[in-house]
């Protein structure tokens, strides 16, 4: 048993067998906002923040999370940036099926925290790892710009 800190709370979890953080969050903590999409760091659906850095939790061993601050979609709304992203997403009808959007929100929040006025190229670079099969890219870009403009 290991202890990991998720959204400011300490949890005792089983990190054995190389269990990725994603499956500890989902199957043990039932923090289901973080999604499984590919398991190979290809789609971004599982994006969480490890000490503020966007990280693909499907390939990040849970044991490596010990001693670090993990933030998930359930916690990001506590930050000013996270709250703004979530509000802009809802107001501008960004989500469609919504399944990728936890990851998109986490990636966008990390981008905007580091770079409050991102250019289109900055957005492309920060968001290229997050697939949206519903094709909400245009609105994600608009929503990020709208937050940057405020």
């Amino acid at each position, binding site marked *: 048993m290991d202890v990991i800190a998720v959204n400011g709370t300490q949890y005792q979890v089983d990190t054995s067998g190389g*269990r990725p953080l994603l*499956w500890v969050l989902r199957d043990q903590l039932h923090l289901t906002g973080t*999604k499984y999409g590919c398991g190979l760091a290809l789609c971004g659906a599982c994006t969480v923040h490890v000490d503020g850095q966007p990280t693909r939790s499907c390939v990040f061993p849970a044991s490596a999370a010990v001693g670090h601050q993990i933030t998930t979609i*359930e916690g990001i709304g506590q930050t000013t940036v996270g709250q703004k992203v979530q509000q802009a997403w809802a107001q501008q*009808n960004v989500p469609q099926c919504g*399944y990728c959007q936890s990851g998109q929100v986490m990636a966008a929040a990390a981008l905007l925290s580091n770079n409050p006025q991102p250019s289109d190229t900055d957005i492309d670079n920060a968001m290229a790892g997050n697939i949206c*099969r519903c094709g909400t890219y245009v609105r*994600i870009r608009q929503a990020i710009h709208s937050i940057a403009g405020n």
Partner: protein
Amino acid sequence: MADQSGLTRRSFLQVSATAGGGLLAAWYLPLLSPPAQAAAAAQQQAFQPNAFVRITADNWTTVIVAPAELGQGTMTAPPMLVAEELDADWNLVRFEQAPPTLPYSNPRIVTQLTAGSFVIVSRYQQQREAGAAVRDMLVQAAARQWNVSPATLQTRNSTVIDPVSGRSATYGSLAAAAAVLPPLLPKLKDPKDFTIIGQPKARLDGAQKANGSTQYGIDVYLPGMLTALIARPPRFGGRVVSYDASAAMALPGVVEVHQIPGGVAVVGTDFWAAKQGRAALKVKWDLSTAENITSADLYTSYGKLMAFPGTVRRYDGDVALARATAAQSLQADYSFPYLAHAPMEPLNVVIDYSPGNCEIWCGTQWPDADRLAASTVLGVPADLIKFHTMLSGGGFGRRGSVDNDFILDAAHVAKAVRGKVKVMWTREDDITGGHYRPAAVCRLTATLDQAGKLSSFTGRVAAQSVAYGALPELAVKVLGIDIRATEGLENMPYAVPNVEVDVHTVTNQVKVLWMRSVANSFNIFALETFVDELAQAAGQDPYQFRRGLLRNNARLLGVLDAAAQAAGWTTPPAAGVSRGIAALAGYGSYIAQVVEASVSGGQLGVLRGVSAVDCGIAVNPDLVKAQIESGIVFGLSSALMGAITLQDGVVQQSNFHDYPVLRMHQAPQTETVIVNSGESPGGVGELGVPCVAPALANALYGLTGKRVRSLPMSNQSLSLS
């Protein structure tokens, strides 16, 4: 719409009769069964006069939504229809997913399939009637309380108002009194009085999808629930001979291994255990009769069929005569690969098959069919299975499985486990699991007469059939979705006197299924790029050439003109940029799209996608636009990079690295113009998909001088920058 509303009325009458509400015998909206009504009432003192609307004392209106939400906005648009006629306060409206019971069947097909872009088409009248009827009951209740004539009362924002005395009462406060009144068949609003329909309202599920709290099927966790993964044969049609589970069972967390008809299920305490267990499982497969095709050979064999006539789908005039007198003849062959839907949420089913309980949670496009399929395996009558249709992380057709594959597999696992189990699919299972958009080869021919006019057109398609026979022919007709492989060609919109369209229905063991825009996804590519070739042969501008052939199709002509205008068709594009155009009538709607692209050093840039859409009354114009934006990305993913290929029967792709889809930096800028014809609503879920690829290919011709005859374009050394 005339025969359609007739059908609606009839199916409702049937429903009322079986639901047995003697009290409301003349009532044509589906009723809740008496026990369900009692339960709802007991639960929250709710007023629920019909299957779709519930009003509670706190003045909230809950709209019970029958179709499945896959991303298209189903939890928002039907509630808007109800709220409009109910005069509900939109800020006090919420949604709830309906169970898979008869009152919630699609009124056109009497099953609860969500497909074919027909949620709004088929529910527009029904949902408005549901709202209007409830409004009428509330007005009657207020009129009785105040002892005035109902005709003198008004409704606004979930409140009944008496303008004479200034009195008002909220719907919530009238609910109890209204519940005992007989519902009537009230008049619906004139569209000019709409205050909610036509507004770009925010999605009711937008906030919860932005904060991760939406519960999809994959998010269901039950106490003591196990997780299973299924080892499936490496080739379609393979079967288990034997298996050795010793290594798998030796791993921590692996608790059971069961053979089921579809393969071998490894059951663990969590996903990770099941995944490790499946990797350690050894299965001996019988592949003696399994599929062994290779994609290249498949195209060759389909191509050979092009020389022979197939089953005729359309036969107008005399093509042979037109050919004999033609000034020019053109012919082109096209080939298209299998495609995987790859919804972001991999398939999954949770079943609680414990003694005395049978309950299923599943994101599906066809919950009643899936429940019935599960009942045959589990031996529990379908209506005793509690079935929860979950919001889906995408579907695109994959969750409307004609052979009910994922639910049957899961039911077999649950039957063996006899407890609570989540049956999961990895992304690899999804990409290799078949149920693909069929591969296809098309041959198009046409002739131009001495005057340069299009005098004949033929289309021939070779493909597997996705679902022919799965739905009764009548249902398919009424539904208006065409699941035939010649969709898009046999109903092509251009005026030509002589037309022949035929089809070769090919069979093999690769499982195929409808995918977003079905056969339009390939036939419209062939047709709309071929029309550009014809325009060139006729020495005309592709836009003007189409105009000339669409004189009798005002709505298609309307969107064609609107798209050309919005894209600035008549002003030349920037240096190094080329434009292409394509158009489609389908799903009761009309679309034309213009794509701007550039190429440098083999790198293709898709810069801009301009769409003009006539979907009749746009219930929520912002969600219409969202669907078109979505369709563009989906269509481009397929056209540019999508291909499932087989080598000796083995699928060669497995995840997003070798089955890529469009990403943020590859998506074009989009603009969508809604042309408001004021007609009844048409569908938009698939509408944005078919034209974007041919419009792009037509733009590319202006840059490369080459016609694209096979997809994906990545095979022609054009990759996306």
